[in-house]
């Protein structure tokens, strides 16, 4: 029997959503201040307007829906789902006011793409966009990659049993330390240390390749944030091709890779446990998956002879493949070249890489390496059981930070999420085909949206059908939250209508 949510349930959800919106409003002050310092007054005003709107919404919700009860699982999940939609809408205000988006929906698409670290873009005339707005485009992935609720958990919400429900609702399966608040702070600490290092390195490289110092460091900050957070936004319309630099590409690859690794793994390595990289099931599966998909990409590109020598094939193939596999979406080729130049085999390999994705508890999307590793272990256990006598006890274990025995519950959970991702990829592809796009292109774009990748073969464009924009927004949102929070929101509405 479904229980209809009460008034207090709604107030609890709105209270926590208000807290998260308040956190978001403070982050919008960053581009406002930067805009003021750079003398970009109109863009600065866009952010003052957006900050004020978000602050008013946040304060009204938190003050009028004072908390009456402890956060339950249902509250936590629905709060996360609602907060992400609210964050998308409120963050779209300054982008829409910039005049670089054809509609408010396009601006919403951009912010959802940013927060979910996807990187698909509908911005117009990007090469003339202000630094203030560009900074916000790139801050979005940095906030959303770590987690919108993680900001609130780190700074605005006091500890308690409720925090874990918000944390897990945002698609994070594990904690680094027992306390969720401390876990959130560690995630921020790791990210900010890398931000300083990454911006410095990319800024210096930018100067050496001929960029002006201010531009070099601004681009360095943006490219790092969108690279480490596996988003794939760039300050210029040519994406990483703009820089025409192997050095820039190599450093970007490095940050994409570390961004796709589990924060827990980073923490272990920082604590001196470097061996964990070699033992960890995620790192191993990641390596195997990269090697397998790159092998296919290389064969596909070699068959078509697009790149005259192996070095060029490696540079272009490797960059696009790693960008897809880490779910970043940075490109050093033009979107249409995937269709006109790459051929079916390389394209299918890239789709597989995008679908697989990065690590859990990272900023990457997709099915994720731990799930693939567990699914493989479960399959091996089943095959062993068939081959061994009935009396034999088969035990599978895997190493992820510690040795873990594989249970049926774990395997079932992993397979459910994996199936949901596959259904989301195929569902989006079907929608694309219904709008008249070819199968492979539809599957490529759908997988890119649902796995939060951001590589595009050209479908994502301001001129694409409104329905498809909405479908991609839903795919990005559901994929980033790993379904649970999205289903909780649907369940909440069903219970509100049908419950007793």
């Amino acid at each position, binding site marked *: 029997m479904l229980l209809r949510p009460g008034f207090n349930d709604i107030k609890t959800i709105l209270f926590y959503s208000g807290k998260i919106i308040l956190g978001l409003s403070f982050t919008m002050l960053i581009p406002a201040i930067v805009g003021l310092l750079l003398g970009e007054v109109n863009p600065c005003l866009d952010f003052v307007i957006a900050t*004020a709107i978000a602050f008013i919404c946040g304060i*009204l919700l938190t003050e009028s829906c004072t908390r009456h009860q402890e956060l339950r699982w249902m509250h936590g999940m629905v709060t996360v789902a609602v907060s992400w939609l609210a964050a998308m809408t409120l963050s779209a205000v300054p982008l829409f006011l910039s005049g670089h988006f054809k509609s408010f929906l396009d601006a919403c698409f951009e912010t959802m793409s940013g927060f979910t670290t996807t990187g698909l873009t509908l911005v117009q005339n990007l*090469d003339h966009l202000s630094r203030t707005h560009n900074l916000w485009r790139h801050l979005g992935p940095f906030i959303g990659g770590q987690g919108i609720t993680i900001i609130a958990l780190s700074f605005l919400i006091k500890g308690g049993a409720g925090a874990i429900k918000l944390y897990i609702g945002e698609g994070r399966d594990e904690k680094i330390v027992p306390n969720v608040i401390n876990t959130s702070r560690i995630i921020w600490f790791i990210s900010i240390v890398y931000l300083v290092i990454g911006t410095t390195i990319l800024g210096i490289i930018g100067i050496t390749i001929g960029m002006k110092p201010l531009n070099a460091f601004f681009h360095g900050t943006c490219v790092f944030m969108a690279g480490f957070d596996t988003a794939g936004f760039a300050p210029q319309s040519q994406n990483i091709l*703009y820089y025409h630099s192997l050095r820039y590409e190599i450093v970007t690859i490095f940050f994409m890779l570390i961004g796709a690794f589990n924060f827990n793994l980073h923490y272990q390595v920082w604590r001196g446990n470097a061996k964990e990289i070699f033992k960890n099931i995620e790192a191993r599966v990641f390596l195997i998956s990269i090697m397998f998909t790159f092998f296919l990409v290389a064969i596909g590109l070699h068959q078509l002879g697009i790149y005259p020598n192996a070095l060029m094939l490696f540079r272009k193939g490797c960059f696009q493949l790693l960008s897809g596999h880490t779910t970043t979406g940075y490109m050093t080729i033009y979107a249409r070249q995937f269709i*006109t130049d790459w051929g079916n085999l390389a394209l299918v390999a890239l789709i597989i890489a995008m679908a697989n994705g990065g690590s859990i508890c990272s900023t990457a999307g997709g099915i994720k390496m731990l799930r693939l590793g567990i699914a493989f272990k479960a399959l091996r256990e089943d095959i062993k059981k068939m081959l061994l006598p009935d009396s034999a006890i088969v035990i599978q274990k895997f190493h992820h930070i510690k040795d873990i025995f594989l249970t049926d519950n774990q395997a079932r959970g992993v397979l459910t999420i994996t199936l949901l991702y596959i259904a989301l990829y195929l569902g989006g592809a079907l929608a694309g085909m219904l709008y008249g796009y070819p199968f492979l292109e539809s599957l490529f774009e759908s997988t890119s949206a649902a796995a939060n990748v951001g590589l595009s073969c050209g479908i994502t464009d301001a001129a694409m059908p409104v329905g498809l924009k909405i479908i991609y927004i839903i795919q990005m949102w559901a994929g980033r939250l790993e379904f649970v929070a999205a289903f909780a929101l649907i369940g909440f509405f069903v219970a509100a209508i049908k419950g007793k």
Partner: protein
Amino acid sequence: MKQLVIRILSAGLLCVYLLSELTFAETLSSTQLINNAKEYDGQKVTYTGEVIGDTMARGAYAWININDGVNAIGVWASKDSIKEIIYRGSYESQGDIVETIGIFHRSCAEHGGDLDIHAERILKKNTGRILREPLDTRKINLAFLLAVLALGIWLLFRLIARLRR
């Protein structure tokens, strides 16, 4: 007289050469070049657009990126040929409009497989300008109104909370 005839003939031949150069270099858009890269690979093309972003010097050459309104394509040009470029497109400025005549590469062997154009000649068609966006008074009014409203609501709730205590 003989010298004059030679000069006229030389000038005529130069004109014919330059015209033939221009005639053979087909004027193309970025979309045509990207979508039909195989067809135009290694051919002389003419591509026109706005210079955007940085001019990135690399030795005696430099990279400029030229946007024709749909896509931007990287152009590899000698430093001498881009001397006349003053403005580069950004938030603050409208870049110079230039016409590039050069060899198009679908995957350039010299530049790691990039799709690019190696410029033989760059002609400035229009000079860009500094963009001075006027202050938007509607935005100023709205920002002020919303900021005051936000502050007012916050103070009101603080006051209510104090009274309750």
